[in-house]
């Protein structure tokens, strides 16, 4: 540790830190325009100039890269320093007369206009000021080595190799992030054969998977993580104080022995691109319910503000119900939750904007506790409810100011009129549908599905949580569309079923079993390859087949197959079934 004196303050700082950091510690502001804490000091803008006094001698240095020395004295606002900064600002102003950040800094430093004639160059307000942060970021931190300087003096500029787009760019966006003027922009276009993903705002390589994720632990997306791509960056690691970042972590498959399984694999949402007439994926400002939910979320891209792509507030918002549900072409069933969240959307939009809100519905299904009340309350808030399914959405413009907007064509069955309603933003209430891999999961647990594709409960009324496979239970939207209270109720019921077995500590298995009567078995081995559970074994010594009772599930296939009728199926013996036939045919 060393002690230095800044503007009369005596402060103690670690050795070989820079004057800039020391000043920061002392709470003294020093202007910078090419400095970024994640980059090595570059010292190109010279704005951070300060006066350092040692003994009788004093000199001007750049604070960002000048190391502290024991007992040194620093003046950050001596007349000499102020004079130099002003001079630098005047030069920058004359060089970049239109650039916003330059003007802002000039104001701070009390410079109104340069004394020098401005070069008659029409610069954009976000022109490049050659701070070099992007270049250093790309080379030193990201290590992509794409950006560099070309030419000298007045012609100096930041370029791509040979001025060409290059595949070496990993599209990390770091350059854009550090660029103080916004000169560097990320644009959406096909890149390396990949179509740009339609997302709400930029998504970082390390993020929390979903807004309400519990536990709220961020994960690294190895595909887009700079460090995992180039070995550089590691910024997240440097800023993470508890040092929780572990780039070495790998996916692993764990085998866990369990006695019972609760299948609650949830649902997928209907892909609205299948209904082209609503312009999802083709028109701007058309959102799926889940996307809109993200938009509304306070931690979302707009911090919960309801904004259009162009950052403006919508004049009107349309919400269309039953996208893919209650629709013979897609899902016949009702997704049950849409009506209510659509009302919630309307409420929030009403709350946060002055936009007019239109709901396009087939029937309102406010079936739950307090739901109907909520519905009536919204009607009072002045939501426009249009009974009738929207026919299509087209691009159009506002009649008054001609601004472009969307127009929803629909029939209002209540007034029996065809209507065309302008909305700036459209929210589609996608249907809840079975997960794409539901069939694989189903076969894995050998449980059945209902016609709608959701998992089938053992009995629709009397046993809604268990399945036809002992020890396998289902809950939530995996079993069928339902809202949170219902899901919680069903899940609790399933959990209770599971616990009751655990507490009993033993299970009862069906007495329906196949057994071999050895006196009749001649070891022809026809049954041997029939059992999917491998319950039939052949006893070489006795030359007979044998059924392992614990493995046998009692399907009776081997019983029917056994040509010597040595295999009997308890509970369904030949005699019993033949007797049954006799009884049936009298």
């Amino acid at each position, binding site marked *: 540790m060393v002690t230095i004196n800044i503007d009369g303050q005596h402060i103690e700082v670690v050795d070989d830190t820079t004057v800039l950091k020391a000043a920061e510690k002392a709470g003294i502001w020093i202007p910078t325009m090419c400095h970024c804490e994640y980059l090595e000091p570059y010292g190109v803008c010279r704005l951070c100039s300060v006066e350092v006094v040692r003994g009788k001698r004093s000199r001007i240095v750049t604070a960002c890269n000048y190391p502290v020395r024991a007992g040194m004295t620093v003046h950050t606002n001596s007349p000499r320093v102020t004079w130099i900064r002003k001079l630098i600002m005047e030069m920058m102003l004359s060089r970049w007369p239109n650039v916003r950040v330059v003007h802002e800094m000039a104001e701070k430093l009390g410079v109104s206009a340069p004394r020098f004639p401005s070069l008659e160059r029409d610069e954009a307000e976000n022109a490049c000021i050659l701070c070099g942060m992007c270049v250093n970021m790309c080379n030193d931190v990201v290590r992509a080595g794409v950006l560099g300087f070309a030419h000298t003096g007045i012609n100096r500029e930041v370029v791509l190799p040979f001025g060409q787009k290059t595949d070496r760019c990993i599209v990390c966006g770091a350059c854009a992030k550090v660029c103080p003027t916004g000169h560097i922009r990320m644009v959406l276009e096909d890149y390396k054969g990949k179509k740009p993903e339609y997302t709400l705002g930029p998504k970082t390589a390390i993020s929390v998977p979903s807004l309400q994720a519990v536990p709220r632990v961020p994960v690294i997306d190895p595909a887009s993580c700079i460090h995992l791509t180039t070995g550089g960056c590691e910024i997240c690691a440097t800023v993470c104080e508890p040092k929780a970042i572990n780039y070495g972590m790998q996916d692993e498959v764990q085998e866990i022995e369990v006695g019972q399984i609760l299948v609650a694999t949830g649902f997928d949402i209907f892909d609205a691109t299948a209904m082209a007439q609503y312009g999802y994926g083709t028109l701007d400002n058309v959102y799926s319910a889940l996307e809109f939910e993200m938009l509304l979320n306070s931690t979302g891209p707009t911090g919960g503000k309801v904004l259009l792509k162009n950052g403006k507030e919508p004049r009107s918002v349309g919400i269309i119900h039953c996208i893919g549900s209650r629709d013979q072409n897609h899902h016949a069933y009702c997704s049950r939750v849409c009506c209510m969240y659509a009302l919630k959307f309307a409420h929030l939009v009403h709350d946060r904007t002055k936009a007019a809100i239109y709901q396009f519905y087939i029937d309102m299904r406010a079936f739950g506790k307090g739901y109907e009340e909520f519905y009536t309350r919204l009607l009072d808030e002045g939501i426009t409810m249009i009974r009738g399914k929207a026919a299509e959405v087209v691009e159009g413009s506002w009649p008054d100011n001609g601004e472009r907007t969307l127009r929803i064509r629909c029939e209002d069955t209540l007034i029996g009129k065809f209507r065309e309603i302008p909305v700036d933003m459209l929210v589609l209430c996608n249907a809840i549908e079975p997960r794409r891999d539901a069939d694989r999961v189903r076969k894995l647990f050998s449980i059945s599905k209902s016609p709608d594709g959701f998992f089938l409960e053992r009995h629709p009324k009397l046993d809604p949580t268990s399945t036809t496979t002992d020890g396998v239970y289902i809950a939530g939207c995996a079993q069928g569309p339902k809202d949170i209270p219902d899901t919680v109720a069903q899940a609790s019921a399933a959990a209770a079923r599971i616990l009751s077995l655990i507490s009993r500590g033993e299970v009862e298995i069906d007495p329906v079993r196949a057994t071999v009567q050895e006196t*009749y078995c*001649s070891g*022809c081995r026809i049954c*041997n390859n029939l059992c999917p559970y491998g319950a039939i074994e052949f006893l070489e010594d006795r030359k007979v087949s044998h059924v392992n009772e614990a493995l046998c599930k009692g399907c009776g296939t081997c019983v029917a*197959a056994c040509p*010597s*009728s*040595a295999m009997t199926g308890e509970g369904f013996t030949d005699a019993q079934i033949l007797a049954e036939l006799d009884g049936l045919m009298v």
Partner: protein
Amino acid sequence: MCGDETMARPTLALYWAASCGGCEIAVLDLHERILDVANAFDIVLWPVAMDFKYADIRKREDKSIDLCLFNGSIRNSENAEMARLLRAKSTTLVAFGSCSMEGGIPGLANLTTKQEILKFVYHDSPSTISTNGGIMPQTHTTMPEGEIEIPEMWETVKALDQVVEVDYYVPGCPPIPDQIWSVVEYILSGKPMPPRGSVLGAGTKTCCDECARKKEEKKLKEFFRPYEIETDPARCLLEQGIVCMGPATRDGCGALCPAANMPCRGCYGPPPNAVDQGAKMVSALSSVIDAHEPEEIERILDQIADPVGTFYRFSLAHSILRRVEKP
């Protein structure tokens, strides 16, 4: 009258109804042991070998014959009549051989009709020349000298127990002499007889039990007919794609046919608990067919020639459906 050994000895009757005589030959094939039988029993009826009158049988008291070995199926009223007579006169009536037990090969006549048989034999047969206006045999014919008649054959062949109550069964076409001997010995030993309806002179398992061939798990994509391939004499014939009735056939024969490289045809009848030999064969074979696709399954099934005629070679008349229906 003690001292008179003929009275002391149990009485034995052997009779053949609709049979080929093979069962009788099998009895003769006891060779020298036949003499022991002759000594042990007082034989009261044996048309093939000795001289007796049916009249004497009719005169006998009911149940006065201790043991009657009845072979041959029931093809016409005369067979049935003898069956009833011998049932009445015998305390123990044994259905002896495949024919009387389950119809046997004659039962295959249930695959066709009496009409078709007569039509072919006396009309369509290539060697038949209708020299007198295509007449057929008649039960009654008037000749210049007078009226003469011949019995009428039945439409459907029956097993003995479809006509009268049967006490025991001895399967086989013909029954293996050693098995016949073991039955005779057992009866002579005076041991308590097994429950009525039991099968004597045979095992409780299937032919496979006696078959020395090596058996493994079976998965079949092709079936062959016996003449189509050379088979490995050490390996299960079914595994080699030869339809063998062994798995659905009661043991007791000593698996003679597989030992001679020929597939079993099921003459010992269905195993103890099997209801229907052919049905058992169907489930057995379809279980070892290694195919999931309907087309492939049909292709494989096409390779199995004449299911009914093969799976019911000996047991058709006694099967669940008993005969083939002709429109």
